């Protein structure tokens, strides 16, 4: 065939040409404009975790645009960003990190990869590259110790606090911690580092409270959980804490629970497994499921409503489906971006650079100085979405507080009106410091002193 022949001849040329185009398009060294602050956005928009990635990074990008449109940037400094597709994959994340690191003569100041595998893959590079790793409630828990991890933040609440809050919630429902003695709790989790992250804290609390803790692992992707749930039915646990990843696994857990007749009112989902995208596919079976929230969903909050007006009003929104405004992942993304911008604002103030872009070390100082008082949250329009919290040299976690919400079949209802802290925050803090100290000793890190 003629076309075949032509193509066969032209193929080397096509390959060469596309390679050239690729090279030409690689990060150019074009001069960045003055008074612009560059952010890197390592999004994950395709694949099994796409629902999470599109919501979260949609929220981040919308807020960056909102600040530009509403206030003309941060004290006059326009916010710009570059995206890179990570596919929620550690190797691609490393590539994205390196690609986003430098844009023109500006360096990336903060990296937020929304996933424990990705966060672990780059965590060792932060100090050397002077980039802040912002883990919004995921990733390495003991990074909450700012002495060992100056560049890593877990604002505003991590998994260990979360599991303590969940156990505390059960105790409340049962009528007190002393009533938890002899109760059976199953930790049903995806068989990865993320799924096991809460266990160190959970095992200790269970021991202290006399809980019979059973750990059951679900191999990824977790579309089939019959055997796990049959085991659960056999065990007849009083409560289940569920640490799943990907909406396929999360919704399957609910439908399988329904099939073995386990009450959904006894299941508590992790923040990253409990969003609308995880509940809706399960249909009516999801009704009653509890979820811990570190960012409360809803469209009525001041900032979210304003983004809808300012950004979506002129058709500049990032979400493909504007219906998803105000969902769990979206509000979490917006809150993450609020923290970035707040960190930058602080950095400008601290380092006398108001109206100028900031560097990595300056941004780090600013991020560490974040103080989200109730008044400040109100000014920013996110009061109610996140709890008030304050970061410091020592404490890179902040609040350690959560709200518990319950799926009513159509949307989440907040069960706890106040933000709930672990019953014994000092206990969690001690665990974190021990773990961080162990890491520091193993890796020859001298913790900095905070005072």
């Amino acid at each position, binding site marked *: 065939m003629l076309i075949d022949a032509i193509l066969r001849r032209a*193929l080397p040329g096509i390959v060469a040409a596309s390679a050239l185009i690729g090279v030409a398009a690689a990060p150019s060294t074009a001069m960045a404009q003055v008074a612009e602050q560059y952010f890197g956005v390592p999004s994950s928009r*395709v694949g099994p975790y796409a629902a999470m990635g599109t919501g979260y990074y949609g929220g981040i990008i919308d807020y960056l645009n909102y600040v530009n449109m509403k206030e003309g940037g941060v004290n006059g400094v326009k916010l710009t960003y570059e995206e890179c597709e990570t596919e929620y994959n*550690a190797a691609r994340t490393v590539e994205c990190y390196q690609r986003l690191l430098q844009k023109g003569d500006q360096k990336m100041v903060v990296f937020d990869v929304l996933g424990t595998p990705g966060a672990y893959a780059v965590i060792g*590079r932060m100090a050397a590259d002077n980039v802040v790793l912002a883990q919004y409630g995921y990733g*390495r828990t003991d990074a909450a110790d700012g002495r060992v991890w100056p560049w890593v933040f877990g604002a505003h609440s991590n998994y260990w606090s979360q599991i303590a809050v969940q156990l505390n919630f059960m105790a409340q429902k049962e009528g007190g911690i002393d009533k938890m003695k002899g109760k059976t709790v199953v930790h049903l989790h995806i068989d990865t580092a993320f799924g096991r992250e809460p266990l160190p804290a959970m095992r200790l609390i269970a021991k202290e409270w006399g809980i019979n803790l059973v750990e059951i692992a679900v191999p990824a992707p977790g579309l089939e959980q019959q055997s796990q749930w049959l085991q659960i039915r056999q065990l007849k646990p009083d409560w289940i804490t569920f640490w799943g990843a990907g909406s396929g696994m999360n919704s399957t857990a609910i439908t399988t629970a329904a099939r073995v007749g386990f009450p959904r009112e006894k299941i508590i989902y992790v923040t990253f497994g409990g969003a609308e995208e995880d509940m809706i596919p399960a249909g009516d079976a999801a009704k009653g499921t509890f979820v811990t929230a570190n960012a409360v969903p809803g469209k009525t909050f001041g900032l979210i409503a304003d983004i809808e007006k300012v950004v979506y009003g002129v058709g500049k929104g990032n979400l493909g489906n504007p219906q998803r405004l105000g969902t769990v992942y979206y509000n979490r993304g917006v809150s993450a971006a609020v923290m970035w911008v707040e960190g930058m604002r602080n950095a400008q103030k601290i380092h006398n650079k108001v109206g100028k872009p900031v560097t990595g070390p300056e941004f780090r100082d600013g991020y560490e100085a974040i103080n989200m008082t109730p008044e400040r949250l109100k000014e920013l329009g996110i009061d109610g979405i996140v709890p008030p919290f304050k970061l410091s040299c020592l404490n890179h976690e902040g609040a350690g507080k959560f709200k518990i919400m319950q799926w009513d079949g159509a949307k989440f209802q907040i069960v706890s009106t106040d933000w709930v802290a672990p019953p014994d925050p000092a206990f969690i803090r001690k665990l974190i410091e021990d773990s961080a100290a162990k890491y520091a000793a193993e890796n020859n890190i001298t913790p900095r002193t905070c005072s």
Partner: protein
Amino acid sequence: MFYREAGQFRTTYAQDTQLLPLREDRVGMAFMLIIAFGVIPFVASDYWLSALLIPWLILALVALGQNILMGYAGQLSLGAAGFMAVGAFACYNLILRVDGIPFVVAIALSGVCSALVGIVFGLPSLRIRGLYLAVATLASQFFIVWALDKFGWFKNYDVAGVITAQQIVIFGHTFATPQEKYWVVLVIVAALTWAAKNMARGSIGRGWMAVRDMDVAAEVTGLPLMRTKLQAFAISSFYCGVGGALFAFAYLQTVEPSAFTIELSFRILFMVIIGGLGTILGSFLGAGFILLTPIFLNILFHAIFGKAVDATITSALEQVIFGVMIIAFLIFEPHGLARMWQQTKERLRLWPFPH
């Protein structure tokens, strides 16, 4: 015109058996090595070194291992990433538990560990063939990753399950910058490539190819089938193991099972097929193509469309184009990139007078 062998005569046996009999090839190879060792590390940016070149070299090495098994010995296998994981964890444990072990020794031993595991999982190949074997090798992929994740000893009972890889230390010097890591990787990859080339053209390689072309016939003519097949599995796994250790230590800088998923196995398979089965060069070209194309597409699309188009759509479109490119390659050049290079060379030879 540029590429002529006329006038080069082989007058000794040594000349006849040397690796690159043509002067042009020798000059070209020397030139490439000089560039790779002496020029690239100084001109390439950190991004190019640490995010593109290092993984490219490492994956080329793994693809080479896969190619030994698949292209030379004809055993379809889908477990490359599993063997990489063995190498990565072996290397971590060797450095952790053996005091003062030199990095290069640790890397070599992790290759050996991987080779041993490879022999075990290669045993079914004595009875199973073709696609059935491919699916059977998936068992190794899933089992290895599960076992490394499940048994705490492999991870030194690390709570998090994702371990920070140790520093690369050779003769007391820490190889920390992208340049230094690039050199380490390049030396190891170059040495192993040289070894592979020699194996492939020697009696070992001929044994493999005989098994590939018709194993029953090979056996009839006196080739020990079991030894040849298991040898191919062992050597292939050795390459994968070394590659996996480098992947963890020189690229990711973390050691974790979930980095070595079945998707990575598939990518490596692609590299071999797109590059060219049964060619050394093809492993490098294929690895470059499969690793770099999605990245360049991503960069290209962001450059062209900027923020005007929904990034979700462009991300999906990248996938589509990548898939179409693979299919197009298989249709128009089923023998892979290596064959394309061969043809280009042929043309260069005749240029500018093709007739």
